């Protein structure tokens, strides 16, 4: 019994990470309908930025602001940096391709993804880097039985949920959020109604990648190990989560991410690690056969 409970908690934590990456992904996705391959790589870049902030000057940030202070600085710094990188990416690689339709956009995103990950390799080298142990908050608490969870992981989950709530609030409850949703639904009409497309794009391409960077730094802190191609699998998971939940809606991305994590943990922990991803994709396909637009994707009938 305890093992099942443990696996549920494990799945939840893994899923929270996926949800966090998926959320940024989903924001860009909802507006652009763009499979943003580069999102995973911005996540990696964020992780590396955070790492650099923490090791620069022999861990100056940590010694000055303390461990948790250092974490805050690294997270905010990485978010700012990657937010700007996201805007830059949009300007250089996506904006000139919008008019050409969706497929060239996908290829451009793929190119950007390859460029960023190999750029990271060129700058930081092909080897694994590890977040310095001195900058990582330590300590763990007993959750139940003999199941321990690190405080850092707990904080990660709390931060993730708080952010999800915040984004959910902005997108669903504010006027600006309504504009974002309108844009996601029908760009042409929204523009005709006086919504500034550029402004929404800027918002989405700043906040989306910044969320990715936050996830990246927390990944680095939790798992210490980072490498230039780290984002590839996270990007794929995020995409899976977004589709699972239903394209372009924030709660869907969160639900999709957490479901994905739960499926992975339960199957790996209780059945087989080697077949885990096969299982996950088969479930995904079955879900899509039953619900062709994801778990809570709205059924949008095309106007004929």
């Amino acid at each position: 019994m305890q093992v099942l409970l443990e696996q549920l908690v494990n799945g939840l934590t893994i899923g929270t990470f996926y949800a966090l990456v998926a959320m940024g992904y989903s924001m860009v996705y909802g507006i652009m309908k763009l499979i943003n391959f580069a999102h995973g790589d911005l996540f990696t870049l964020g992780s590396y930025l955070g790492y650099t902030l923490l090791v620069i000057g022999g861990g100056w940030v940590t010694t000055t602001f303390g461990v948790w202070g250092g974490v805050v600085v690294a997270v905010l710094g990485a978010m700012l940096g990657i937010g700007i990188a996201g805007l830059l990416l949009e300007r250089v690689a996506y904006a000139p391709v919008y008019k050409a339709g969706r497929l060239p956009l996908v290829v451009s995103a793929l190119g950007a993804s390859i460029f960023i990950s190999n750029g990271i390799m060129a700058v930081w080298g092909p080897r694994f880097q590890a977040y310095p142990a001195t900058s990582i908050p330590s300590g763990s608490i007993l959750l139940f039985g003999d199941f321990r969870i690190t405080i850092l992981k707990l904080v990660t989950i709390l931060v993730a949920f708080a952010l999800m709530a915040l984004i959910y609030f902005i997108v669903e409850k504010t006027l600006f959020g309504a504009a974002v949703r309108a844009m996601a639904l029908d760009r042409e009409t929204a523009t005709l109604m006086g919504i500034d497309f550029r402004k929404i794009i800027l918002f989405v391409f700043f906040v989306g990648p910044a969320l990715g960077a936050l996830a990246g730094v927390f990944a680095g802190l939790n798992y210490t190990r980072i490498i230039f191609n780290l984002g590839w699998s996270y990007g794929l998971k995020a995409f899976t989560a977004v589709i699972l939940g239903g394209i372009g809606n924030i709660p869907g991305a969160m639900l999709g991410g957490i479901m994905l994590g739960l499926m992975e943990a339960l199957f790996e922990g209780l059945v087989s690690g080697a077949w885990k991803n096969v299982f996950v994709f088969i479930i995904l396909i079955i879900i899509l056969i039953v619900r062709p637009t994801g778990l809570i994707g709205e059924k949008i009938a095309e106007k004929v």
Partner: protein
Amino acid sequence: MNRRVFAMVTLVVTLSALFAGCAGQGAQTETIKIGLQAPLTGDYAAEGQWAKQSVEVAAELINARGGVLGKQIEIVVADDASNPKDSALAAQKLIAQGLQEVIASYGSSVTAPAADLYDANKVVSVGYGCTAVRLTMDKQRPYFFRTAGRDDTQSEFFVKFATEVLNAKRIAIMHDNQDYGKGVADDAMRFLQPYIDSGQVEVVYFDAITPGESDYSAVISQLKELKPDVWFFTAYYAEAALLLKQAREAGLTTIFVGNNSVPTPEFEKIAGVDAIKGSIHLNEPMPQFLDFPESHEFLNAYRAKYNELPGSIWAVYAADALNALAAAIEKAGSTDPDQVANAMRTMTDARGITGPLLFTERGDRKDIPYYAYIYNDQGVLELYSGQ
């Protein structure tokens, strides 16, 4: 539009002419060219870079001693991106440049197609990061050798170590479904079979983790439930470090036994001292424990140049592949592949960083000793000396 096709064709043709031209001229200079095929990009880019650095350091040492047959050694590098198709092309490229000896490559399924090509073109190739048994045993490749040991040697050592030294009853074997990790795991299972049949040992876990992921808590919870005495991990350091760190954080205290791809500087850095202390690792003699003059010389030179130790044992094997080739060329008195291959098989006094460089008829390294190492409480690797 057709003008563009034509332009493209012309471009391709011109470029190919250019490159072919380079290759043609190169063969006439006064150096001995030795190829190095390594994964400089792709998933194992780090391994490729280390191999390149190590081989270059080894070449500098040889050249400083006056080279081979009085000529300087020059290394020609080709990237195989750790993928079979690129491997075949990289091999063709080195063959087309007229090389007669190459060091190739990392990963058994990447090495196999290249080894076939080298063999068909009578080019001596020496593998350094390819340990699958079948490479030498499935078919005779007269021009193929390897400086790394075989999966089964290390698996056999693990079984003896686990049953006789650790007295393990419940064993967990974890791999990553890649050719190397799965190979070692399968062989370990094979050698364990008699013990399992006699009821002395139970394998409570035999499964793969997915490499490249970050959170392995699910599998750790599972191990906690299964309570094995020994946890044998047969894949790479990056996953090993995460697993061990997360296991210790979760309170799993099972003895961790890693194979020869685990104990690296990266492993120590990622997992941290708290996690790695007490973990045991099975390895061929590691460079820093070798008391050969060659190992000291190499490591000092490497450290002087890169300010660190080689990142993995495979890079050292790549350097030794060069040492073996150099010795064989010297012995044969020529770079003729037939004579060099013959010399590789018959040489008796060649010495490398990892000890004597002797090869069997089928191209395997002879007498690779294995040792168990343990990380002490300071996180420093030392020889395992019992409880």
